[in-house]
């Protein structure tokens, strides 16, 4: 028998349920935020002992609350302790989302972030399917085997203990909330108001942290810190609170998610405001809504806002795990040697909240489809282009349309409408033809820029 003995790691699973070891720094135990793509941006999850601050500068959106609800729902579903510090904490908990019925039993959810259109957000989903059946897009051989372009990380196929798959259509059942409250898993702390509301809250949190059962992680959720119910908030008070909270929980199995009201999330509050907040917390992330700016919302129709990572948690390490492991941020040496950070955006669909890389739409931002399928091309029914142009752009249609409407001498915009009529006639013979609304690229009254 050999004298050598294979040395095995002492524990392969973490001691605290619902946590997992960080891939790059195994001494860090991390908690899931409930959003797989958010976990990816943090480098795997929110490490225990860290304070994460989420800033939402848009007054008309509640992205911060949404992230808090995911955080709470994940804690309740995963069996960790949850402590909500807010004026009406019960309302925050009651509005949280919940898992699918099937997922609660551990069945595969069958839904992933990899397929961004899976939940039928876009109108005319039926059109796309019909076209798929008609004409399968032929891809050049060298690109055919490339994997599908992904803007986010895929959700886990099964709803794991670490990160459950939540559905925004579902609300958390009241029986779960009452059960968690009775068992001590869920606790809510009110805000006293007045001049010492921050001190009182800190003292309550300290008690809650010390009362947490052993081998149970605690999620501290502080929505709207410094809001009206906290009294007249001075910046120094806020900094003291964040600093004290960080010092308090850095050695305990707790992690805190803090959101600020919109008027404290803006850089204009004070000189260097975001930088100070970023230093005083372990991680600081901004969710800036595009809705605040009409030009941005029209430019990025598929996204709801952009995301900036000001700082990422890095306990026990110099380089944050986010820089090494995040696929979406793309800072790691393996994914992109020497390139910069990806532009990040977020969007909320009917079922879930996704963070992903930000890209312009095809051909610089026009939201409509520009190419038409060959077989059912409206204006080219009677025109028949040369083969390379058959699936051509809208310019081709505009160029060729006058041959059909010769002698009428109408401008290009009018020609387009004729093309649609021609198609309507064609539909008589083909009842299952595709709708017309997707076919025409330009609706401008003027001739096209490229229409020479």
């Amino acid at each position: 028998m050999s004298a050598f003995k294979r040395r095995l790691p002492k524990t392969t699973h973490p001691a605290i349920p619902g946590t997992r070891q960080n891939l790059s720094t195994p001494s860090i135990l991390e908690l899931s935020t409930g959003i797989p793509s958010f976990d990816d941006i943090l480098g795997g999850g929110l490490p225990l002992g860290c304070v994460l601050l989420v800033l939402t500068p848009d007054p008309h959106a509640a992205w911060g609350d949404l992230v808090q609800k995911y955080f709470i729902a994940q804690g309740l579903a995963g069996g960790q302790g949850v402590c909500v510090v807010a004026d009406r904490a019960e309302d925050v908990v009651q509005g949280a989302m919940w898992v699918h019925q099937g997922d609660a039993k551990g069945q595969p959810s069958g839904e992933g972030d990899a397929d961004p259109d899976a939940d039928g957000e876009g109108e005319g989903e039926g059109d796309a399917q019909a076209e798929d059946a008609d004409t399968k897009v032929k891809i050049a051989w060298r690109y055919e085997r490339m994997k599908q372009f992904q803007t986010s990380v895929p959700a886990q196929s099964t709803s794991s203990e670490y990160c459950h798959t939540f559905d925004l259509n579902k609300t958390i059942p009241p029986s779960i909330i009452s059960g968690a409250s009775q068992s001590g898993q869920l606790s809510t702390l009110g805000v006293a108001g007045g001049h010492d509301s921050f001190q009182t809250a800190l003292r309550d949190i300290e008690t809650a942290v010390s009362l947490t059962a052993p081998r149970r992680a605690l999620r501290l959720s502080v929505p709207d810190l410094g809001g009206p119910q906290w009294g007249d908030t001075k910046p120094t008070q806020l900094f003291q609170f964040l600093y004290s909270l960080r010092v308090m929980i850095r050695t305990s199995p707790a992690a805190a998610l803090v959101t600020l009201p919109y008027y404290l999330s803006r850089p204009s509050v004070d000189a260097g405001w975001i930088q100070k907040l970023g230093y005083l917390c372990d991680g600081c992330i901004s969710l800036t809504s595009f809705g605040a700016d009409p030009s941005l919302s029209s430019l990025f129709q598929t996204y709801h806002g952009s995301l900036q990572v000001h700082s990422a948690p890095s306990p026990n390490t110099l380089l944050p795990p986010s820089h090494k492991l995040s696929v979406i941020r793309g800072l790691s040496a393996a994914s992109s040697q020497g390139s910069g950070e990806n532009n990040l955006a977020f969007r909320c669909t009917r079922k879930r909240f996704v963070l992903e890389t930000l890209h312009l739409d095809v051909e610089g931002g026009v939201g409509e489809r520009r190419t038409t399928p060959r077989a059912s091309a409206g204006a080219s029914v009677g025109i028949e282009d040369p083969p390379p142009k058959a699936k051509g752009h809208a310019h081709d249609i505009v160029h060729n349309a006058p041959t059909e409407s010769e002698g009428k001498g109408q401008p290009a915009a009018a020609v387009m409408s004729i093309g649609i009529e021609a198609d309507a006639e064609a539909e008589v013979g083909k009842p299952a033809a595709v709708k017309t609304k997707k076919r025409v690229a330009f609706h401008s009254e003027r001739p096209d820029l490229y229409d020479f």
Partner: protein
Amino acid sequence: MAPSSLIPSLTFRARAESHQTYIPPPGHALVITDQLNSPAEFLLHRALAAHVKDIDKSRVVIVSVSRSFAHWKAIASKANLNLAQLSTSGRLTFIDAGPQLALYTLDSSPSDSPENLTPKSSLRPLFGQISSALTHPSPDSTSGEPTHGAQVMLIIDDISTLEWIGYPSTEIIRFYRAAHASCRKNAASLIALCHDHLPGQPSPLLRGLLARSHAHIEISSLESGRSGAVSGEISIHPILDSSIEPIQRRKALQYRLLDSGAIFFERGTGSGVL
């Protein structure tokens, strides 16, 4: 093995001696500023490792405002430094300023008036700890007085947080001056980290610190945003010590942060570029 240095091209010259050293000589005060995208924490760890490894029987006093001992220990272990062992042998004194600066206190009863819970307006208690640590080796040092007279380094992590949580900047500058004076008396060097939250417009605190320092190491992030290949740029500005070789901003040295430390390279010669 070549002696480890803070930054490859940075050398210091002590007043009395003619030879160059790679770490600040006794009496020197060094201010490091960083930005949110390019933290300078790695320089503190490099200074700690260089000081402990290269100088026999040297001592280090670390005043940590924002990080715990576990954090320091985990990072130092990647540089083959056992901080727990150094601490028990008396070569390291770790002063965790967090609990005494934080709003809450563990032993305070809820009946305390709120005034007792607000941070004290004076940094004198903290300075008292520092000065006793500089003068005497750690009390639990069992080996008598072997470290007496040894070269000491004082590392203050994160001075700017003191200002943000409510200490007046004049008080912090006085604290820094007192710490520096105590360092000079005990043949210690001083390295302080201050965050530059307004790049290009130094705060009154930072200006006050720089006026009393021998050199300023500035870590700035790339103007083009974060990059996977270049973590930031380093420039060195000598202030009171003209023997230090400056690195101007436009010729700044670039570095890439790794788990174990940093790799320095000249502009345009990073692994992602070449």
